Structure formats: C-alpha cells, structure tokens
C-alpha cells in the first residue's frame, strides 16, 4: 500500500485547525500525538452504545464492555508480537508501567548487592523510579554513557555488566530527545548473557517501528497510548508471564484479588493482579482503535515515510546558521532537539508558535541528557508523526532561519 500523507492528514480533525490564523504545523508528536477520527469515534461509540463497568457484570452491556476491553488486550499483544496476552497489563501511562516494575519486581526480585542500569539518555520516567527504588531498598544504580553522536555506548555497557551484579537493564528503545534508536536486540542479548533482565521504554519506539517482543526477548516493555495516536489515561506494560506470576501486586483493590478477608488478601493471576480498580475501559477501546489504525496503514509504511522526513530534516536543519542539532545517531527516528546561539529555547518556541509551529522547549523530561550535552538551558524539540509532511519540515527550517534575524 502506498502511503498518502495528505489522505492520512484528513483522518485527524485537529490538523485542519487554524492557530492564530496560521495553518497548524504540529511538530510535538513526541510529547503527545494527535488522534485520528477512528480513535475518537471508537471512544464515542463505546460511551454511547456499549458502556458499563467490566468484569463481574452478568448483563449485556457489561459483557460487551468486557469483551471490548479484553479485545484491546489481544490487539496489544498482537501489535507487540507478545508471547502471551496475559502478559499485557494496562496501566495509566508509561510512567506508571515503569513504576510498577520498579515497585513490584524491583523491590521483591532484586537481591541485595544487585544493580539497576540505565543510560544517560533516559526520560525521567526511566530514571526517577530507580532513584526511588534506591532510596527504599539501597540497590546500586549504574548509568551507561551516551556517545557524542548520541548513541548508547555499548562498550561502556559491556564494562558495566561485566561483574554480573546488574539485575536489570532499563533502556529507552528510542530517545525522546535525540531520536536515537537503541540496538535493542543486542542490548537484550548482552543483558541476558550477564544474568540481567531487560526493560525497554518503548514510549517513543512503539510509535515509529514494528516491535517484536519475541525477537527482542524483552522481559519488560512499556509504551503509552497517547503517543500512539490513542487516548490519554492508558499505558501498557508487556511482561513475560513468568515474571508477572512471581511479582507481588503493586496497587491493591478490586478485581486484582481472588479472595479478601478482613485480615488478608489472595491475588488473582496476571494480568488481573496488576489491574486494581476500574480500568481505563474507554481508553482501552480507543487504544485498540489506534492500534488498528496504524496497523492498517502499516508500521513499515509509517517507518518508511518517517525515514524520508528524517533524511530531509537532517539535510535542512543542519545547515542553518546558529542552530546545533543534538545527536547524530546512525539509527534514528523523527525527533530533533536543537540549541541555538541566538535565542533561549523558550523564546524560540514562542516565536515558532506565532508561525503556527508547535514545538516543545525545555529539557523534555531528560535533564541529565541536557547536562551531558552542555545545554542546561534546554533545547527546542521538533518531533514527527505519521501525518508530518516534507513541507512542514521545510517550513520549520525556514522559520528557524528567519528567527535568527528576528533576535539578531
């Protein structure tokens, strides 16, 4: 199927909005993506025709809602080529999914003296939970270096795995700042060979590439609905069932127990054990629609389209005077963080906004990475989605050029 970006854009109602009289050029999909009509409609239909709380309801609407909720789990498992749908846990976002692993697996399965290893390019969601774990349990934290080109330093990784003390390697499958795509299969093999489990933060990667959990052999993989053109309020933890079975629950409440007395509780099998309380029902339906949407277009077609955009951006954004790109990884996706010598990131973002361009300014929840690259003040980040066009990339380049004149 050939990819027609103009047709795709018509699926997204918000893209036809004018912003302050200008066409919207939405280059902040890395923070959160826009929603196609199919997702919005699926959520509306759920609420207008098939809504009730799931599980335990022996009546039509509840059965229909339960079926829809569980169908979303199956679709998610297929989307990731997960070995078993019971390994798919719905959380509220990537952040909760990683915290779940830190709390439940980290607190109970890591032995004293073991370490958690992450990299310099991680999002705070894959740093702060480990800080909290360290405070609580005293595990060691090791940080893998990132090379000047923005890649995970595999030699450093090997060195830091060598003593066999690392219990978990937690790495972003794709950086939300540099765009770097990590060599995940290789990292998983290295981790496993050193006796460690591996968690990939796929919040960015799952949006842009086909993910194959069986090929990756990942112990834990997380992503978040709202970046995949789906709703807010839902994230995914995909885990090997054997881990989930051994892990104690994280949140306690309804639907995650098999029996409760006043004195004690017994846990339900996974995934229920990790889904306390009323789950994101409408959001699961929306996520399912989002998965169907990108699958119908084809992850390969999306990747190819974005590769074109990345190539063009690399050409157009690298020769603008006063603009410095962070990172130049070989394998990268459509995320570009830029520092300029003429304006603070915040001022530049405001300026671009006036031209209709939505970009993010700051440190993008990756403060250590900005420190690493000596840009504590932050960067302006443009990030692409499947609806991004070459014309938008060109327009951004033009605006960056003119911005220099403005501030001069």
């Amino acid at each position, binding site marked *: 199927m050939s990819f027609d970006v103009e047709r795709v854009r018509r699926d997204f109602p918000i893209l036809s909005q004018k912003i302050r009289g200008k066409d919207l050029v939405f280059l902040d999909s890395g923070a959160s993506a826009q929603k196609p009509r199919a997702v919005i409609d699926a959520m509306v239909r759920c609420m207008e025709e098939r809504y009730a709380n799931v*599980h*335990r*309801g*022996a*009546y039509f609407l*509840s*059965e229909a809602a*339960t*079926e829809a909720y569980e169908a979303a789990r199956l679709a998610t498992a297929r989307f990731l080529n997960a070995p078993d749908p019971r390994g798919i846990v719905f959380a509220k976002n990537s952040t909760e999914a990683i915290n779940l692993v830190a709390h439940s697996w980290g607190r109970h399965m890591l032995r004293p003296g073991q370490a958690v290893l992450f990299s310099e390019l991680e999002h705070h969601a894959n740093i702060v939970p480990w800080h909290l774990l360290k405070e609580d349990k005293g595990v060691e934290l090791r940080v893998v270096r990132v090379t000047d080109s923005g890649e995970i330093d595999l030699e450093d990784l090997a060195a830091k795995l060598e003593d066999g003390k690392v219990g978990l390697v937690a790495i972003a499958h794709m950086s939300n700042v540099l765009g770097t795509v990590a060599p995940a299969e290789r990292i998983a093999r290295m981790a496993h060979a050193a006796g460690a489990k591996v968690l990939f933060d796929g919040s960015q990667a799952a949006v842009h590439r086909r993910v194959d959990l069986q090929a990756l052999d990942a112990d834990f993989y997380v992503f978040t609905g709202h970046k995949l053109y789906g709703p807010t309020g839902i994230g995914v933890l995909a885990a090997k069932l054997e881990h989930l079975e051994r892990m104690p629950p994280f949140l306690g409440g309804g639907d995650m*127990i*098999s*029996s409760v007395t006043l004195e004690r509780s017994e846990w*339900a*099998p996974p995934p*229920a054990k990790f889904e306390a309380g009323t789950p994101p029902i409408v959001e699961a339906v929306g996520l399912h629609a989002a998965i169907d949407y990108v699958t119908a277009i084809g992850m390969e077609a999306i990747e190819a389209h974005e590769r074109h955009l990345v190539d063009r951006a690399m050409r157009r954004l690298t020769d603008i005077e006063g603009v410095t790109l962070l990172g130049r990884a070989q394998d990268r996706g459509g995320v570009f963080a830029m520092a300029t010598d003429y304006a603070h990131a915040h001022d530049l973002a405001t300026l671009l906004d006036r031209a209709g361009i939505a970009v993010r300014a700051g440190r993008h929840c990756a403060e250590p990475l900005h420190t690493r690259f000596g840009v504590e003040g932050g960067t302006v980040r443009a990030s692409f989605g499947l609806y991004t066009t070459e014309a938008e990339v060109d327009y951004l380049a033009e605006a960056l050029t003119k911005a220099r004149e403005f501030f001069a």
Partner: protein
Amino acid sequence: MFDDLRDLYQEVILDHGRKPRNFRRLEDADRSARGDNPMCGDRLELFLKLAPDGRIADAAFQGRGCAISTASASLLTETVKGKTAAEAHALSDSFRELAMTGTCPHCQAALEEEMERLQPLSGVHEFPSRVKCATLAWHTLNAALDGAKEASSE
C-alpha cells in the same frame, strides 16, 4: 418476561442445579482439586477415585455456585465415570468447545452419548459472562487429572 431463557435454564439444568448428583466428599479420593472463579465467587472441590486400571471409578464434588456451575459439575460427575484419563480430557475439551461455541463439530464420535447428555448446557455460549460458570468444573477436572491442586476459570 423470561420465556426465551428456557434455552439456557432447561429443566435438566434447574434440576441438577437444585439437586446436584454426587454432591459429597470422597474421603478415599485418589485425586482432588479445587476450582475457583474469583470473578463470581464460585468455588468447588472435585474428587476422583481411580480404578486399578486407571479409569475413573467414582467422581463427586462439593462447593457453592450458581445453577449453571452446579449443574455442570453434577453432570460432569455422571459422565466421567468409567473414563480413562485421556477420555476424560477429551470430554473436557469437547465440553469447553460446546460451552463456548454452542456446538462441537469435531467431537469424537466415541463421546457422542456423553455430549448428548451435556447438550443442555450449550445455551450458555450466548452468555459470555456465564461460560466460565459452565466450564469451572471441567477446568478443575483437568487439574485433578494432572495432579494440580487448584484451577481457576478466570
């Protein structure tokens, strides 16, 4: 008001639900397992007595549950008697297909008679949330045959 429910609650179901057969402990059971459906609170314990040749000599159960799960357990104890473990497994697979789809086209001819007796439970396939009630006893049967202690029809 409820006439079309006679498909699901056929007289035989109501009867087995009210007066379950083989509803007792088998004190000298060779195999037993507990089945649990946490979603609706149904619980049962299944007991099997094996003959020297390995066939099921006796089957009984205890527990609490709805009419469907009770009737299903009751019918189970009746139909598995005299079966080898392999036959009982096959019957269990067939029954679960029946409960989920309403038919069992690929079912072994050898089990035709037993499937006939279980037929009244086929109406459950139209009620997704009730399928587990019907299959709980059969999951427990598998667990007992395999030597496991617990089953869950979640």
